[in-house]
């Protein structure tokens, strides 16, 4: 193909956007709305994922040291725990710290414990966190076999329930996002298909006048790319705007939200990618049907 022909195709692609005015407008409208909903969803899903990661990261286990273990044995146990690959942090909590913490837990009824400081029945312990919280229960099994370890409290019941809930949230969230991605792909390519169906006579005429398939396809490629990109830029801007308000609104509240820049790069990049790819190939693919003349 000659360069001037390539230039011609790009020029025609641009012109077609305005030539088909109303129809292109409507189609881009559909792309915008579809990608907007997808983008809002991705934004929420990414935040939800960050939130569940955060919750998971709080999972830890108490490694209870046997009563009467010597300081040096405790130190060597600490070394051993720290040397486990995949362990993120090991924090020593002495029996004295333990009483304080228990008191805080009982709050109003803390006075029940007065006097216990003198003959402290609590053990020394280590609070251990795994780098990957999902390994916690496994580490617990392993640590139980270590010397000087009385028992390991991994809160198995609670942790398993927590994982259960998090897994459901992730599956549902992930399923929705994937479903929405496919929905968006379908809706965008379907809309483009309809607009091209409405122009099938023109494609037929072009073929009858001697155009080959690529000559006809190229301007549709360009047009589709433009429509997709245009249809992505609008929702990206809207989401960036809306999200920056949300970040402000949730500042100083319990709810943690991801920072604007990184999120917009991810969501925006993805929307632009979908818009451009589906726009381009959706239109090229739909044209194919009418090229058999």
């Amino acid at each position, binding site marked *: 193909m000659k360069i001037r022909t390539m230039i011609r195709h790009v020029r025609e692609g641009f012109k077609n956007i305005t030539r088909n005015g109303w129809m292109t407008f409507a189609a881009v409208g559909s792309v915008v709305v579809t990608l907007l909903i997808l983008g809002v969803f991705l934004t929420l899903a990414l935040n939800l994922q960050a939130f569940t990661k955060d919750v998971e990261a709080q999972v830890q286990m108490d490694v209870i040291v046997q009563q009467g273990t010597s300081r040096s044995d405790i130190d060597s146990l600490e070394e051993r725990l720290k040397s486990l690959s995949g362990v993120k942090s090991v924090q020593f909590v002495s029996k004295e710290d333990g009483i304080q913490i228990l008191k805080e837990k009982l709050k109003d009824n803390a006075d029940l414990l007065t006097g216990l400081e003198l003959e402290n029945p609590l053990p020394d312990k280590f609070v251990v966190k795994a780098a990957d919280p999902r390994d916690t229960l496994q580490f617990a099994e392993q640590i139980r076999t270590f010397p000087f370890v009385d028992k390991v409290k991994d809160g198995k019941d609670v942790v398993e329930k927590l994982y259960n809930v998090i897994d459901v949230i992730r599956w549902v969230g992930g399923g929705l996002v994937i479903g929405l991605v496919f929905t968006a792909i379908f809706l965008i390519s379907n809309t483009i298909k309809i607009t091209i169906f409405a122009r099938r006579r023109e494609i037929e005429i072009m073929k009858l006048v*001697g155009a080959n398939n690529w000559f006809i396809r190229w301007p549709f490629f360009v047009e589709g790319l433009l429509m997709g990109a245009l249809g992505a830029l609008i929702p990206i801007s809207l989401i960036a705007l809306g999200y920056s308000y949300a970040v402000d609104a949730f500042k100083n509240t319990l709810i943690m939200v991801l920072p604007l820049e990184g999120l917009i790069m991810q969501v925006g990049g993805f929307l632009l990618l979908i818009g451009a790819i589906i726009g381009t190939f959706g239109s090229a693919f739909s044209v194919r049907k009418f090229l058999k003349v």
Partner: protein
Amino acid sequence: MKQWTHTRSNSLKCLVEDVSKAMIEMQDVWKTYPNGVSALRGIDVKIGRGEFVYVVGSSGAGKSTFIKLMYREVRPSKGSIFVNGFNVEKLKEGKIPLMRRQIGVVFQDFKLLPQLTAAENVAFAMEVIEAPRKKIKTRVKEVMELVGLGSKLNALPNQLSGGEQQRVAVARALVNHPAVIIADEPTGNLDPETSWEIMHLFNKINQQGTTIVMATHNKEIVNTMKQRVLAIEDGQIVRDERMGAYGYED
């Protein structure tokens, strides 16, 4: 007024090409449309290089079907078709455009691209063969003036009168100097004077060696410009005369 012998002598210029072979040839061609209408029944015909052929026949006789077979708008149910050395039916998909670029077609229903201006419609046929932009611009202006539409370059098809649209279709068919011009009723929407202008144009082009096949209902034109006449009735060629006449009396 041109004579058949005249045409012959013109075609001699093309001796380097395969003159012995016909420009258009149909061998036992049948066409039955999917809905069961039998439009053509056993067409055998040869049209030589440089010939000028009128195709006449009543409405629904099969003229357009006959013509559409030549550039593969319609596929035959049976038989073979050769155009300028191409075996039209055996052509690989990728070659079809090459074959069509040898043929300039004036469609009965014009088939203009509705989104493009008159000039753009004509230019399209040149863009397809990747002609340089400047050449396109000058040539498009030239043919538009030949058909009397020098002032309508930027009008969209729906901003043109019926006859003007028809002339844009004629201009598009001429623009690439094709080896064959196939015109389906190209003067149906034109007044007699403009019709004659178009016919003189076709005549001149024919004298330069272009083969012309033209379906028409215009008795006056056929009878005045003595050329080969193919009469189709009910899907069959019922008459094939050198220097013929329209030949129907009312």
